[in-house]
């Protein structure tokens, strides 16, 4: 078990607004971790910092003891909350692009997953429904042999049946030594695949714990605890 991510007193402000407030935490290898919080709690800000799309206002952030940069991008496979792919491309084009871009991309696995979800590699992205686009992007991200997968709202737009397949895909396709950080507010759908959760509230971490410990201690589901902690 080694530490993949360390952050100390990590803070990000946008003008007067504080999005992350002195966050300190560690992410170890070999876990599926839910990053849970209501809208605007700082989930995406944290994820963007982790992927070098934002720079911290203050504090420290290391991925395997190195600052965020080229090396960290090699080992983190990131699914953003918004797409950055060119919609005029076909799935095949995008696979080639990923293959050229990432040394750890396994095209065969991507084709396999596309086939089981009945997505034709020849289709253009812009001809696809929102959910299908999301599936393609998740396939791209999960086909890398990364050490950390960071999935920002991976299942929001897909139907429940595909959601099950996607969760299954996540479970059977990641290396047990790797970790997956999933941000979502669809907790009840994914809570059985998580083994840890991080609750984030108004830019601060209010809980990081093992999922079964929480159930044992509170006698309730993560979903129920979430509703209690974040009651409006």
């Amino acid at each position, binding site marked *: 078990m080694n530490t993949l991510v360390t952050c100390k007193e990590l803070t990000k402000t946008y003008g007067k607004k504080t999005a992350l407030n002195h966050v300190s935490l560690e992410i170890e290898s070999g876990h599926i971790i839910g990053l849970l919080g209501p809208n605007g709690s700082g989930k995406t800000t944290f994820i963007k910092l982790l992927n070098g799309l934002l720079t911290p206002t203050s504090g420290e952030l290391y991925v395997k003891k190195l600052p965020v940069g080229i090396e960290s991008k090699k080992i983190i496979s990131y699914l953003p909350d918004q797409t950055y792919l060119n919609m005029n491309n076909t799935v095949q084009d995008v696979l080639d692009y990923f293959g050229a871009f990432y040394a750890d991309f396994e095209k065969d696995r991507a084709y396999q997953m596309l086939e089981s979800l009945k997505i034709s590699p020849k289709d253009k992205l812009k001809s696809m429904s929102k959910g299908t686009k999301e599936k393609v992007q998740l396939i791209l991200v999960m086909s890398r042999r990364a050490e950390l997968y960071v999935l920002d709202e991976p299942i929001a737009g897909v139907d429940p049946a595909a959601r099950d397949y996607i969760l299954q895909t996540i479970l059977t396709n990641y290396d047990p030594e790797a970790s997956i950080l999933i941000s979502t507010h669809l907790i009840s759908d994914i809570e059985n695949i998580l083994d840890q959760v991080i609750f984030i509230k108004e830019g601060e971490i209010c809980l990081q714990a093992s999922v079964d410990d929480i*159930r044992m201690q509170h*006698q309730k589901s993560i979903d129920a605890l979430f509703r209690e902690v974040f009651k409006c």
Partner: protein
Amino acid sequence: MEGTKNIKHSENEWHLTSDRPVFIQIMEKLKLDIVTGIYQPGDKLPSVRDLAGEAAVNPNTMQRAFSELEREGLVYTQRTNGRFITEDITMIDQLKEQMALDAISQFLKSMEQLGFSDEETMKLIKEALKEETA
């Protein structure tokens, strides 16, 4: 998914809920499969990963359930071959009896909550059994 074909349950048999620790529910399910003979003594268990995929749970959770079953002696590991169900039939019989007693005490508790005395409960059981055999 490949590699999950020879698993003996179907997906919907797991019925996991989220308000109790999942590894405990998995243990209960596997114990039931052992005493009902879905897994025979000495049978090989599927891999952690395959079973985790099938039950849609975290592999660490499945691992924890396996480790607990191993600690209780119902499952043993052969270093390179994987995990197997115990061949100790006495132990499986004891487990079966324990599970039966647990089911009975739970039933008795519900009957008590409904306000039935032991005698009344007994009478109702007898009647129900008679109806079933008729």
